[in-house]
């Protein structure tokens, strides 16, 4: 039983949870406002990872040491741009059409990003090694029986900082207030003079930026990237967002850490059933709390 609930596994859980958290916030923000499950969100994460890859390779080729903050900004910008474009090109024209159309379009955007990336010669469909040590050389620290790498520290730190910044934006800025208003009631917000399309643009940019950052963090911690890397983490982040209550940012964060821990402990208990256990937990929670852990109970208004 020793290998299951020890400090090392807790560290592993926090690490995975942080990455899922950054991705799932994007899902939850977009859903909150336009009730769209943006399946392409996992691919914004992939774009961020590749942007970071090229940024680091570019620096290395010029014999300069890449600066982590600059690479982070680059991957966030790439994620933001791709998200903004997806919204403007694919989702905006379908804003007032049946929701199913937008959903299918989201799947289409996802596939488009994946297959176009794998077809582009400088990306290619195969795996690439992320230049982890050129960006941050590895250092390990011991805490009791557990080992912590500086990658994990960087990972969690950047994730937490970004989440704090996001919470500040949402709670204490005008745009944040506009986002919350639009999520609560889109039509009323419009009546109050809020430009919904601007808010939606901003939401996508923020969500995409966070996903892009998650891409960089993944590249640093698990140095292997490929065009389809966004599919499974995107799915898990979405599940985490639903688990925490879709539409709620704290919910997304909570759900992600729970997913991270469930995955780690599930795999530690039985590595073959591991992920299944995590999803079983999800099903159980949703049976008893269909709105998710922090979601609002919305009854059917007759």
């Amino acid at each position, binding site marked *: 039983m*020793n*290998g*299951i609930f*020890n400090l*090392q*596994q807790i560290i*592993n859980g926090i*690490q*995975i949870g942080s990455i899922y958290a950054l991705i799932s916030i994007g899902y939850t923000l977009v859903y909150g406002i336009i009730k769209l499950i943006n399946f392409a969100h996992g691919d914004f994460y992939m774009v961020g990872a590749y942007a970071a890859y090229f940024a680091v390779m570019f620096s290395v080729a010029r014999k300069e040491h890449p600066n982590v903050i600059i690479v982070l900004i680059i991957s966030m910008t790439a994620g933001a741009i791709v998200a903004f474009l997806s919204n403007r090109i694919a989702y905006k024209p379908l804003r007032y059409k049946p929701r199913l159309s937008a959903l299918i379009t989201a799947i289409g955007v996802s596939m488009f990003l994946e297959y176009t990336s*794998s077809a582009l010669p400088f990306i*290619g*469909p*195969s*795996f690439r*090694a992320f230049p*982890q*040590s050129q960006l941050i050389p*590895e250092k*390990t620290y*011991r805490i009791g029986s557990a*080992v912590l*790498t500086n990658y994990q520290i960087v990972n969690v730190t950047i994730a937490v900082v970004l989440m704090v910044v996001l919470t500040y934006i949402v709670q204490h800025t005008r745009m944040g207030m506009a986002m919350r208003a639009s999520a609560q009631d889109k039509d009323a917000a419009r009546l109050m003079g809020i430009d919904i399309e601007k808010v939606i643009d901003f939401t996508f940019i923020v969500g995409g930026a966070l996903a892009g950052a998650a891409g960089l963090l*993944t590249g640093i*911690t*698990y*140095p*292997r990237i*490929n065009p389809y*890397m966004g599919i*499974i983490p995107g799915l898990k982040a979405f599940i985490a967002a639903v688990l925490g209550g879709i539409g709620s940012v704290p919910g997304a964060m909570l759900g992600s850490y729970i997913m991270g821990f469930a*995955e*780690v402990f599930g*795999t*530690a208990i039985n*590595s*073959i059933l*591991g*992920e299944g256990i995590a999803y079983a937990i999800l099903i159980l929670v949703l049976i008893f709390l269909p709105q998710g852990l922090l979601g609002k109970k919305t009854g059917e208004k007759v």
Partner: protein
Amino acid sequence: MRKKKTLLLLVSLLLVVALFGTVLTGCSGSKQSSNNNATQEKKPILIGGVAPVTGPAATYGKSTKQGYEMALEEWNAKGGVLGRQVKMIFEDDKADPTEAANAFSKLINENHVVAIVGSVTSSCSLAGAPIAQRNKVPMITPTSTNPKVTEQGDYIFRACFIDPFQGTVAAKFVYNNLKARKVGVIYDIGQDYNTGLAEFFKKEFEKLGGQIVAYEGYPDGTTDFNTQLTKILDNKPDVIYSPNYYNDDGLIAKQARSLGFNGPIVGGDGWDSPDLVKIGGDAVNNCYFTNHFSKDSKSPIVQSFVKKYEDKYGEAPDALAALGYDAMNIMLTAIQNAGSTDGEAIKNALMNIDYQGVTGHIKFDKDRNPIKSAVIIKIENGKQVYVTTINP
């Protein structure tokens, strides 16, 4: 309303014409080929080649394909097979069994190849073999080591050793040479090769008296092995056995080292890839793996092959290239020996073949598997170093 209806009608008419057209041209195509029996002799012999040049096993596919092509060119330069030039129709199966099945179907039903060389990963060969067997098209896989592949039928052959042997070789090496008594195993549960090889290793290692202190699986596509490795390391193994494909092995080694494991990590022929060091970095030093071939071998056949390959491709060959080369050569030799491109004749020729390849002496046993030796390779300073040969 009327505009929509006419549009619908037009589109459906177009579709029908298009479908009809393809059916017609398809039919006439095959009619043409059977009418040209007289000129059949001058037409090239078509061989199907399958390998994963893109996807998670991309370096295997690239090497194997280069092996196929080099063998093909050599035969064609010497006049071809049965007086005809040989042409390979190549399909990329992306290491995905569904793509492999499609590739085999296409090669057999559309391209009418006389034989297939491929595929590379065991899961893909297992997907393609029943199709080849059903259509009586002889198939030889250069690199799939899972025993189930040749069990699919008497038209299915392989150029490499099988995993019960590979697992035994690894177990003996770990027990006798590395003197390890406790081993933790980590393997991909979604692939036949990994799962099979892990089992064979476990069986043999326990038979020798060793202890498998942990046996952890992971789903295909995992990048975070920390959970499984943490559990393995809690049991203080001397050695970690990771019989996986190079993309995973690199990350596993890295994460194991990060978690504080400094002992040797041992794997199978899936470790053989130039990308292993790119992904694993320093972590893959002090690691060993079982393989089919070492380019450092002093044998003249190996050295001549290595030189030809380096001249042609500008890089040293790995085991997959060598096996691809041997497999294509074996198939073409069999066709030559059979004196015809008839599937059954080729199959019988294969059964009786006695071929000295780059990867060893190849003569098939009753299960159409060759009895071959394995080599142990060590990774030191990012380079592959030959350690020893283990005979069956």
